[in-house]
């Protein structure tokens, strides 16, 4: 089963403290956080399923952490990816694998 994809794949898997630092950066720079997961072989399919953030609530670190943990808990066999999208350059500024499949 594939355990890494693109950014930070040559480093050991991130600890929860490092993930928190990235979430701080996302909120500071006013990027849009996106949480995605996928179970299949990545090289064939380019689009991952999305775990939506609820509307109408203010963006905060606790919210993003909570949704990320929910996604991981619901899909134990999937890769979970956290991204921060910048509308000005229309590109993801941050994108890395937060959790590898737990077997």
């Amino acid at each position: 089963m594939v355990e890494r994809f693109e950014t930070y794949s040559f480093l050991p898997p991130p600890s929860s403290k490092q993930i928190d630092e990235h979430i701080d950066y996302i909120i500071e720079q006013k990027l849009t956080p996106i949480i995605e997961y996928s179970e299949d072989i990545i090289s064939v399919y380019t689009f991952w399923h999305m775990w939506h953030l609820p509307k109408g609530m203010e963006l905060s670190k606790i919210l993003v952490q909570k949704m990320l943990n929910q996604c991981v808990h619901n899909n134990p066999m999937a890769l979970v990816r956290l991204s921060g999208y910048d509308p000005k350059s229309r590109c993801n500024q941050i994108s890395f694998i937060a959790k590898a499949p737990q077997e």
Partner: protein
Amino acid sequence: MATKKDELPQLAQNMRRIMGEMGFNASDLSKKSGVSVASLSRILGGQVNPGINHISAISKALEVSIDSLVLPNGVHAVTQKYTPDDSTTKQHHEEASLRSETDILVSFILEDTDYTPNEAARLLANAATASWVHSWTQDLVDTENASYPKPTIAMQVGHRKISVDVAFPESLFEEGSIVSLISVITASCTSTGARVDDIRIPPVLLRTYSGPSFGVQGLRDKTQKYGRPLLSATMRPITGLSPRMFANAVFETLKGGVDITCDPTLLHSVPSNNWRDRFNYVSEAVSDAQYYSDELKLHAANVTASTVEEMLLRAEYAAEHGTHAVMVDSGAVGWSGVQSLAKFCQENKLTLCALGGRALHNGPLSQQLVAKLLRFAGADIVSVGSPLRGTAMARRNVKGITRSLEAHNMPAFPEGLIMFDQPTCGIQASWPACGGGHNAWHFPQLIDALGNDIIIQCGGSTMGHPWGSLSGATANRVALEALIQARIAGKNLAADGRNILQDAAKNSPELKEALQYWKEGAFLFGVISNNDKANLDGVIIKDKKKTKLKSIDTED
């Protein structure tokens, strides 16, 4: 023959008849339906054009369908044959009856004129032949065998309105060309102020058109979706997204349960979102969505461009990469563009959607005529308005438009401005796509009014769902399927639609959230709220009472 567009004489008659049959009087009906006695008396007197809320409350109280109140009796079975003019000599009569089978009959209407019917007939006869004076070349023409347009009937239908029927001989038109049909007929509209209401195309000319390559039956077979209307959603916002994010949104929406997603009509190719990248990513999104949902999906890619060669180039790219459908702005591109694209789509197995550009179809040709001609030109999906916005008159006009898109029989329906019987010669039916701010609360009335073979455009409620477009698509799909199941079981959708939706929401949390979020009756189109401070800064507003201009600096 032609009733005025803004009168509903049948409503009062039908209501009185049904109330007499069931033994209601006005006060009973007002108690049961919740409409006040004053409004009821005004409706029965024929003085007011009631809105859809009153009509549905009355129809629920009387336990009949809305169509049996609004449409005249027996309209489904009537066929009015066109009879040629009564002439004095026998030879004239034979000539007229021979010609009436091959003539193209056009119904013109002159609004707000000072002419008498006689003068109007002569005016249009001269305008149709494009000759106001006698020229020397007229003596070189064989007048016995040459045939010219002839006006047949001219009558006064209103205070300053005249309706004239003109018969054009079929030797004036080119085969297989809708463009030449329109060009010859609307030549009589220049500087006479006439508008065209309907055209009857005889089989002689109709067999040269090929019609839509897929149509209702073809698209259902290609995608294997039987027994229900289809859902579609238009992507938004129109600017600001990268091609890949756009395709991500398409993937989420298609996976949730929508059948066709459409490019917005306003988005052609801008440097930040050019057409090649967009088609590329979107075709991958379509194939991924097909894998995850086990259903066949389509995305209508917008190929509108300034030259026809560029349009065909983009359509070829879309066909190679697999978006399965193509859309075009039929008003801006024109009839030549639509016909050339239709021919290309037939050879390459693409579905052609003629969406958008409806504001440009308010010219001399009326809307049901444009829908009919788009169907003959080869468009598989044609956009019509929504029958629910406005009054009961809108419902009847939209019904007229959808009638011109049906396959099997097209009898005359003068209240919907279809003046003639139209033979079909087996040309396929097209899909009507009705949209305009619908959400799940409106589906029962939509299906009740227009039937099963439609496409429901609900992009606003799909992408505006608080939990994302995946949940929005699922909510709309659950609502649609629950209503179809109830309709086959025999329930009356216009009366019981709300209860069916609320029952279906017990099994689906997405639908429950959607029904709470979209408060019933709210249309999401054309809404101006007081909280919109978006683009009003810096606008100079002229006040009608004061003569001075209000400037931004002074505080008034």
